[in-house]
């Protein structure tokens, strides 16, 4: 591949700039939709960008006793891992190099920010930060298992751990959303846990732990954290779309891109509606829901996929 094309792909489309714009757009859509669901007006379209610029311009303060190197590294690592995950994923229907097992690599890269989030709470040493970080780790073990098991239904159906093979199987047998609706809904639940959105927002419950692990962060580092979570939304949703819907289009087509973007907007709408409808779960309710209901359901679902 030509070097200039490669640079264009990495930095502009479907790389960093496209991801950034999509992330900010989806974040705006989320805030606007939740506001409208509440009967409020909601922010103007440039609000997420304005927030980001404001945070980057603000002073960067951390409490004394914080390990400054770690506090700077953690948001960078999580940001980098989400960006790296985006390069393995055919975002916006652009074909990417695929290998056996990139599904698992993607899972690992997407779960890195949660671990970094816990460590962020630990190194900043605030009371709320430590509690928020511990809560995120507690939640981690229930939704991560659910997400992996529910998503692996697609890998079982295609007989391969490669994203390209999952897509090829869908082109042959039709999109996986039709036989695997339950799996899709369960992986959406897992993704909500990963993104720490309501009703899985126990680690950043405002009325209990202020902002959870990010309480003590400010300025550039906080902006980077927010950007990471917004990018994680885009990459996570694209992952779901790729695994369940990618039989609908051919690669590198404009029509396919529009369907992809429409699905992204619809799924973000569903996430916003769930945020608006449901209240935060208690920790015991979350553990009960995930380990006693969702994960057995996922296992049954996977057995059903094996049988068909």
């Amino acid at each position: 591949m030509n070097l200039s094309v490669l640079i264009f792909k990495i930095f502009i489309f479907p790389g960093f700039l496209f991801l950034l714009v999509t992330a900010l757009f989806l974040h705006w859509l989320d805030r606007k939709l939740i506001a409208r669901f509440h009967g409020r007006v909601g922010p103007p379209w440039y609000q997420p960008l304005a927030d980001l610029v404001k945070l980057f311009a603000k002073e960067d303060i951390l409490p004394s006793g914080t390990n400054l190197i770690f506090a700077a590294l953690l948001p960078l690592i999580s940001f980098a891992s989400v960006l790296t995950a985006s390069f393995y994923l055919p975002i916006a229907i652009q074909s990417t190099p695929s290998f056996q097992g990139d599904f698992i690599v993607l899972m690992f890269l997407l779960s890195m920010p949660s671990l970094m989030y816990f460590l962020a709470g630990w190194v900043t040493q605030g009371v709320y930060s430590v509690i928020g970080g511990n809560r995120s780790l507690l939640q981690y073990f229930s939704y991560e298992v659910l997400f992996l098991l529910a998503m692996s239904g697609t890998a079982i159906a295609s007989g391969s751990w490669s994203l390209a093979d999952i897509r090829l199987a869908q082109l042959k047998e039709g999109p996986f959303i039709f036989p695997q609706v339950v799996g899709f809904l369960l992986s959406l639940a897992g993704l909500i846990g990963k993104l720490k959105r309501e009703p899985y927002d126990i680690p950043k419950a405002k009325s209990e732990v202020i902002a959870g692990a990010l309480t003590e962060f400010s300025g550039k580092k906080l902006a980077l954290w927010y950007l990471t979570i917004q990018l994680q939304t885009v990459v996570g949703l694209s992952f779901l779309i790729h695994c369940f819907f990618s039989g609908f289009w051919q690669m590198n087509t404009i029509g396919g891109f529009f369907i992809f973007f429409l699905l992204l907007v619809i799924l973000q709408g569903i996430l916003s509606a769930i945020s608006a409808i449901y209240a935060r779960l208690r920790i015991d309710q979350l553990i009960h829901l995930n380990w006693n209901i969702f994960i057995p359901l996922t296992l049954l679902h996977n057995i059903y996929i094996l049988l068909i």
Partner: protein
Amino acid sequence: MNNILLKIRSYFYLLPNIVEALFSKPETIDYPAVTHRLSESYRGSVRIIAENCVGCGLCVRDCPAAALTLEKDSKHSFRLIHYRDQCTSCGQCELSCKFDSIYLNNTYQKASANRKDFFEVLVDKTMKK
């Protein structure tokens, strides 16, 4: 069976509400341009009928927030001053007044950064020297 159906319905019972909210007008008002419609009994700004005021000082004595002061030179020469930043709109002055002079109406003072807006001379019956 019925119980399970009810339970499943309970997970979605807010769905019609959010769909309705999505397609209806927002409740938010364009505040400085449009003001809230308040009920008649709403306790807002402190107003006075200056002719009725005799400067007895009952409102000043009873004000729990110490938002009223009376500057009295003689029996018929006084000034009643209201400090809006301290006032909690509790309505005690209205209850204490024996002459139906001081009352609260349903308007309110907009936020201000100007020092002069924080106090108001309600009655000025000082004798000109």
